[in-house]
């Protein structure tokens, strides 16, 4: 799980162009949207695409999205649970 969280942090900084944000200082339990990173709904959708592409996990409706993207921890947990590509 920890490895997955770290992987997600690095990808987020890269695809969301989070200049100045360091993966090491990111709060894994803080809110992703509207939190200190300044993410919005478009960032979430950008992550949705990456997660489907790289982990084979679809998050295709708003209700599910709101639950899954509550924090980095909830996101990693959902991917871990549902990805056919991760060894458990």
């Amino acid at each position, binding site marked *: 799980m920890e490895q997955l969280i770290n992987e997600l942090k690095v990808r987020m900084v890269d695809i*969301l*162009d*989070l*200049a*100045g944000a360091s993966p090491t200082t990111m709060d894994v339990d803080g809110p992703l949207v509207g939190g200190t990173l*300044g993410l*919005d*709904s*478009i*960032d979430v*959708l*950008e992550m*949705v*695409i990456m997660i*489907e*592409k790289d982990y084979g996990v679809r998050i*295709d*409706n*708003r209700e599910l*999205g709101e639950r899954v993207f509550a924090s980095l921890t909830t996101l990693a947990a959902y991917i871990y649970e549902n990805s056919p590509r991760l060894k458990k």
Partner: protein
Amino acid sequence: MTRERVFIAGMGVVSPLGSGVAETRSALAGGLSGIRPLSLFQTPGNIPHPVGQVRCQLGGHSIPRTHQLARIAADQAMANCREAPDVVVVGTTTGGMHTTESLLKDKNDDPGAYRWHSAGSVTEDIAGRFGCKGAVLTVSTACSSGAVAIKIALEMLRTGKARRALAGGADSLCRLTYYGFNTLQLIDPEGARPLDKDRRGLSVAEGAGMLLLVAGDPSNAVAELLGAGLSCDAFHPAAPQPEGQGAYRAMRSALEDAGLAVSDIDYINLHGTGTPDNDLAEARAVNRMFMDFQPLVSSVKGAIGHPLAAAGAIEVVIAAICIAGQLVPANTGASFPDPALKLSPVMSPRHTRVRTVLSNSFGFGGNNASVVIGAPADRATPASAVIGPMRVVAGACFTGAGNTARTLAHLSAGASCKGVLSVDEISSDLSARLVRRLKYLPRLAMALADEAHRRSGAKEPPSSIFLGTGWGALSETHEFLSSLFETSEKFSSPTNFIGSVHNAPAGHVAIMFGATGANVTTTGGDYSFEQALMTAYHLGRGEGKTALVIGADEYHEKLSGLFDPSVQPDDIPSAGGGALILASDSTPAGVTVFPGFSAMAENHSDVVAALVQSLGGSDRIKACFGVLLAGIPGAHRSAGAAQLEAFLASSGFKQPVIEYRKLVGEFASASAVAAFMAVNFTQAGTIPGPLCNGRAVQLSGKGCLVLGLGKFVTAMEVVLR
């Protein structure tokens, strides 16, 4: 002097409900829906979603689908008119994209194959078809484009710029919009259910709506165009302001423009796309504005889908059908209205008295437009505002040489400003957080806006934004389509889709400034800035307020060479733009700018004679202007040179001529840099020697004439007041 009243004298419509007013009326009266699974193109690996696809036979395949749809609606609108429209204003976002994306997918590298790509070519095709001798404007404000086009035409008719205008909107289905809305998770897999408690999104659609608008003459009028209002959310590139503040301001402004009270409106044709956020924000705005007077409301987007740039125009045609047929269309698609919206949509077609209709259209970039039409009747008309040239408060420009100061230094030395600044150089003064996720064009527009505002020294930034771009956000468009095709049409970036619309950069400028006034993006190849200036001249006025007019274009390694025939002959790629902040106040002193003349050359037997005449003839030209800045785009060098020669012969103008594209390079909005140069020269009263064969020229109170030549002939008059 009273303002001219404006009437709808002809209408054309093609949508998933059919072609022509009669078919549309009968489909609406029958409560039919035109939404079916997509069949226009394949969707590999995915079941096609329901869309609003036009099923009737189109004209042919020599021109792209948007152009064909536009022709159908325009031919209907003009069927009983033997005279040419004085102006043509069309809203479109996709232009030739349906054809272009197939060409790109096939890796077709022949620039000739892309000659119908531009959004502007849709309007030019219509203008050529009817021999329009006046201004030809293309509006690209995403889903409000058609309604914004109608507003611009309305103002041109009111001010006497035109007596007859053909205005509307057109967009065809294409992969960019189909997959784009899909990446935003804004597609309802069941088909759009506007205002329904279970609504999940829209159905992307296509179509065209066109109106023949005439000033003053109510005979044979279908309806009267009473007013229209524009606003910008200045909130988010794609999501509406949750309380519907922008929607409220657009509706309020439309009613004020029409001189009506809320109780005068019988029916609101809602934007009502069926997305959870739009419908809620719009409902909040309607409830706030109409309170106890709530008129009948419905959205037709469950029947026709969302035809994007065509929506506003198609829905004004539908509004006129409502008035003529005393019919309120059903809120098709919805089964259980969402109680949270506090609206009572009309659930089945209803025959009732309809005298006045308000029609809403909102788009990406927070670009909102509301239009009011009514049955022709005796009405008092408000006094007409006297409008003249606008005063230049400040300006800025970027070229390959750098920002404003560097570009001016280069130009004064007669040195070339060709080249392309890096994206980091352009946005070095903008906060990293502000430009996160943004590519070249929005950064360029924001940098120009920011620098112009700083140079003005004003506390308040401009409240309305007008942007002309020849080719729009090429980087975002290219990346979106490339990723899509690389992943067998499975994945692409929502950020790139939102960024791909022509009006995204102006939306970002509005967010940066909190500019909630009109926000209009125009596009028309090498003459896009002139279109933005003309639009600002008609819509950007207001006591104590300023309007920002920007022209900006990027250079894209792959797409610029394919799309833009003007960059092809130049070995050095160039990019850049200019910006002017304009005030409509009556401050006596200062440099003013006036968009004097604009016409498609091919529609005139002698366009140069018309230009000279519009400038007041040879004597006025010689008396007013001390230098001519001539813009001859690369694609039209021989035609442009011949026009210049004819102009000099006909006007007897003997002062220096500066062919500015030789200095600033070939990019569509190079004329924005020229306009800024002209303002600087006029202010300084002198033209630097290196630009005039080594000897500085004193203007002695005269100004600069900036001409655009080639496919269009345009004039911007820059003089001291």
